[in-house]
């Protein structure tokens, strides 16, 4: 049995990272993720880890690059504008095949946007976290507990793939306090330090190097390997929650905080006799294509994309799987205005009523 605590999402992420083996964090203050660096600034030294407050987002992600190259489980966190600044570094991590955890507690955008919660970074997270055409696995937990479970195992994926992993949450989930059950500390020794790293603590006795720059045709080969890896993720690593979809005529698609508000609406509508369900991508990349592709479209009358951003950003990924077999609708709030139970419920009812009129 784990240990139960009433914790802020951001702090739960930080503690789960430590227990998952994180021993290096570098970051720069930005709302609404400040509890992550604040927590790790005292927590990491307790377990022999290192916390550094970087002079910028750019410096922070490059500190992570250095620490990750030594085989140390390393992470940084930020919010939208800061993730943009880290984009170069994340691309370099991918190029140098370095595992790391990046956490984005997102806020309203574009630009400085707002410091209030929003889901405005879906496209950045899933399509282009930086230049050069690479992908990271993108996890979108919808509770403090799920964030703990995902962060705890983030380096298992990152080290398996030698690729950074992104956890995308919004400011609501970062700041919400909920009860979480914490897993035990992963005890790791020098023998666990990967052989590809530049550490010598694992007994490596030959010269090694790591670079984000390659000559042709090596780079093409690396691009091809990455392409194969992304395909493999679709086979092995898709995580999705399908809720009341078996007989559903309407399907809400939502992730993160939007999925919780949407699920409440689904439950209310079911009580009213509406045949409605929810598909919740937990991995945004790889996207749960099959869940949407394989629906029985002789039954499904409409898909409703609910996101806390305007316009909806996941819509194209949904439409690619629906392939015109039913209408796709969207509802959202944006710019720091939060989704709420009644708002989502009313929007869905309106969409269904409108759809039935057509």
């Amino acid at each position, binding site marked *: 049995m784990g240990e139960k605590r009433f914790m802020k999402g951001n702090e739960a992420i930080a503690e789960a990272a430590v227990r998952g083996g994180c*021993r*290096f964090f*570098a970051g720069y203050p930005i709302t609404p993720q400040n509890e992550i660096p604040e927590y790790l600034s005292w927590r990491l030294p307790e377990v022999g880890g*290192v916390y*550094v407050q*970087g*002079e*910028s987002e*750019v*410096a*922070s992600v*490059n*500190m*992570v*690059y*250095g*620490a*990750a*190259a*030594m085989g*140390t489980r*390393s992470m940084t966190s930020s919010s939208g504008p800061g993730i943009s600044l880290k984009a*170069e*570094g994340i691309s*370099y991590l991918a190029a*140098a095949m370095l595992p790391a955890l990046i956490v984005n507690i997102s806020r309203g955008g574009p630009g400085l946007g707002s410091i209030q919660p929003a889901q405005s970074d879906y496209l950045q997270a899933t399509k282009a976290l930086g230049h050069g055409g690479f992908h990271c696995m993108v996890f979108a937990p919808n509770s403090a507990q799920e964030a703990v479970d995902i962060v705890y195992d983030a380096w298992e994926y990152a080290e398996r793939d030698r690729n950074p992993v992104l956890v995308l949450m919004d400011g609501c989930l970062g700041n919400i306090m909920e009860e979480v059950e914490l897993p035990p500390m992963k005890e790791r020794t020098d023998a666990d330090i990967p052989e590809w790293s*530049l*550490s*010598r*603590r694992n007994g490596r*006795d030959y*010269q*090694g*190097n*790591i*670079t*984000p*720059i390659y000559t042709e045709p090596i780079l093409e080969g690396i691009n091809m390997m990455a392409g194969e890896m992304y395909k493999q993720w679709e086979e092995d690593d898709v995580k999705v929650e399908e809720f009341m979809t078996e007989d559903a005529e309407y399907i809400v698609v939502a992730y993160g905080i939007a999925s919780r508000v949407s699920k409440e609406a689904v439950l209310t509508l079911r009580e009213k006799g509406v045949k409605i369900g929810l598909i919740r991508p937990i991995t945004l990349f790889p996207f749960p294509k099959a869940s949407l592709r394989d629906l029985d479209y002789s039954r499904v009358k409409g898909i409703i994309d609910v996101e806390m951003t305007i316009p909806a950003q996941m819509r194209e990924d949904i439409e690619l799987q629906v392939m015109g077999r039913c209408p796709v609708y969207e509802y959202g709030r944006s710019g720091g205005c939060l989704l709420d139970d009644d708002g989502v419920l009313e929007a869905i009812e309106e969409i269904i009523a409108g759809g039935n009129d057509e």
Partner: protein
Amino acid sequence: MTEYSRASLLADAPSGYCPGCLHSLATKLIAEVIDDLGQQDNSLNVISVGCSALNILYWGGDFLSVAHGRAPAAATGIKRTNPERLVFAYQGDGDLAAIGLAEIMSAANRGENFTVIFANNQTYGMTGGQMAPTTLIGQKTTTTVYGRDPATTGYPLKMCELISTLEAPRYVARFALNSPKGVNDARKGIKKAFEIQLAGKGFTFVELLTNCPTNWKLSPLDTLEYMNTNTIPYFRPGVYKDTEADAE
């Protein structure tokens, strides 16, 4: 009889630096000092972007190649997690004094226990000779075709002078590689910096004045004379900070 041999961390490959380029000499000096200190397996070279990045082809020891200007940040991540290693960053003037100014000043100010070796040849060599933050007043480059004009481009940045104003750094020195004495002094300076680091004492910074025959459009020999008459009068060699010596 003295036996001369290739330093052990220099890969067995001909240098791809332009003929007469002092990057080769600087790299050789570092490798020789590592041999002197017996740090062949413990050293870690953080290779920056620019002509310095060519070292990924010639450096035979452990190295990490990093983003433009970010070597001091990456070195921070390395050294903080692996303090037993001899960590040094090798950066050029565009990398260190322009795009990476925040990283070098912040790492120096934190007193990070690694060494930065700064090759200052007053130009962006790799990209074809554009104006660098250290380009001399009046010096012609591909982006200052009439010579660097301080009215629009400011003045060459003196990094040793800047860094030596900070509290944390332990050793800050500049050497010119255009004379045998300068080369000998530089070798001693690099060794001293590494020794301070190995003793865990803090940040060390060694600036090496170098050349760029190709982009200066001078013969290698003429670049050495150019350095005497133009570079050295502005970037004065010397020890700018030495907390060891101050304590004595």
